[in-house]
């Protein structure tokens, strides 16, 4: 490449001989190129993020009026199963009288439900992602009468908290609200 031109004496300022106009130009060009590359790359990368129609499906309304006491339903939300259980009084008591010291992932039942009879949790085992059994009356419910994951033997209780087995945390409680007494909006 052609020789670097040292700054002329007439250029004013105290430019040291080893910092030249060319250095400034190269640096600003490189900076603008970096910004330009980022600006071009961003729409492509962003296009992979969930699109508007996927985000629109990110809320699911559930009609809970047909769910009898002791019954549970499974609904799809964001592509995942969500367990909605209408708990019996006995199940609620069991959940609330468990000493926190016994829990691998301590959490009170009160902190996991908005209204005591209604437990809403994402039905994906926190170990490696299988769907635990326990929604149907004929399903095995594990040693704590909640849910049992057949893949590696995790047991969940009446508040869907992990009690025994390899799962590290309780079943996730998603964001939900009671739109009316008969309807829950998840997400």
């Amino acid at each position, binding site marked *: 490449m052609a020789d670097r031109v040292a700054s002329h004496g007439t250029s004013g300022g105290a430019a040291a001989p080893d910092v030249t106009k060319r250095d400034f130009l190269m640096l600003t060009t490189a900076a603008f190129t970096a910004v330009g590359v980022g600006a071009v790359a961003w*729409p492509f990368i962003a296009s*992979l*993020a969930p*699109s*508007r129609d*996927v985000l629109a499906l990110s809320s699911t309304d559930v009609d809970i009026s047909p769910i009898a006491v002791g019954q549970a339903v499974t609904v799809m939300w964001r592509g995942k199963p969500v367990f909605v259980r209408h708990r019996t009084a006995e199940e609620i008591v069991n959940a609330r009288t468990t000493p926190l010291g016994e829990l691998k992932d301590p959490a009170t039942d009160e902190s996991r439900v908005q209204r005591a009879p209604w437990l809403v949790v994402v039905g994906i085992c926190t170990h490696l992602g299988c769907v635990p059994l326990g929604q149907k009356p004929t399903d095995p419910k594990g040693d704590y009468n909640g849910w049992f994951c057949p893949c590696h033997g995790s047991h969940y209780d009446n508040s869907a908290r992990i009690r025994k087995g390899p799962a590290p945390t309780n079943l996730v409680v998603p964001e939900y609200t009671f739109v009316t007494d008969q309807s829950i909006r998840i997400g």
Partner: protein
Amino acid sequence: MANGLHDSQVSNPVLRWIDQRLPVVTMIQKEYGVFPTPRNFNYFWNFGALAMITLMIMIASGIFLAMNYTPHTSMAFDSVERIMRDVNYGWLIRYAHMNGASMFFIVIYIHIFRGLYYGSYKAPRELLWMLGVTIFLLMMATAFMGYVLPWGQMSFWGATVITNLFSAIPLIGPEVVTWLWGGFSVDNPTLNRFFSLHYLMPFMIVGVVFLHVAALHITGSNNPLGIEPKGPQDTLPFHPYYTIKDSVGIVVYFAVFAALVFFAPNYLGHPDNYIPANPLVTPAHIVPEWYFLPFYAILRAVPDKLGGVVLMGGSIMILFVLPWLDTSKVRSMRFRPFTRVLFLLWTVNFFVLMWVGAKPAEQPYVLISQISTMFYFAYFLVVLPLMGRIERPLPLPESISRAVLGMKASLGGGPIPGTATAKPMEKA
């Protein structure tokens, strides 16, 4: 080197390790760093680089569109609308791809114009030229199939018209068309295979572009004077002179591209393609995209079906043999004053063909298209063979540096400092 490594001169140790085993760094330095390039390029020589950039943009935008597009007749149109409305920046990627296709043809037509005007197709660059025509054909096939994918009215009916052309083949024509369609009309099998081929062909184009550039680097570039460089005083290293000049060209190119994409994204398109394809309703005027119009005009100019197909194909195939049709020993039109006028008329005629291709097949447009078609072919078949023999060209300059720098400076004297001459080539 003794142990089977390339003798690399690269200073950085990591890069040298790579270069010793696969001399990519050495290759880049040779082909795009010091490569001796004629010093008298004008901006017409930017368009090859612009074409390469357009190809990269089309591949990138196309790959991301393919992540959201569904190639089934029941879902194609809606999937494109979903890209426009729901996918983040989907509208931008789609418009970039759509207008990028037009930009690609604008760039390539100017690139071809340069080749025709300055005689870049002449010896020893005949193969380079033919590889270029091959790329042009691949581009047209790719663009045609791509336009079918949104499954609008023009997509469907354009596909129907163009695939029906093959029925003109004697004896086997109708069977060929059934085979192309994968059915008895343009339908789902056609759409699916067009999607697969449309994804494939750009990569074939990449391969032929590689050959095209490789061939160029053997013969070296042509230049506006059409005379070969005689030594290092006639050339400049590609970097930094032409990397910078190409950068300027790229900025202007992006400005034009951005103006289209952001301010007039549907200007070059046809509104009918926003109507979902309907096999029972033919649009009033079926028109291909603007870049196909000249060839469409030639097709329609001939009253005979097979004749039209043959002439349309011939209008591009004739470019392959151009190096042998043009008998002039002089490359650049700058020194062929009479032929130059005829060539410029041919260029105007190309635009006339483009204009008339969009018109309905009625008089006076039919007669205009026929005269224009005849002039298109006459230039290649009559003018060029003849003019080479009967025209007296202007005297060629002695050398590039003489013409660019003037007599005094090209001999090494004069006020121009030594850094204006190129770095001497280390290797022959």
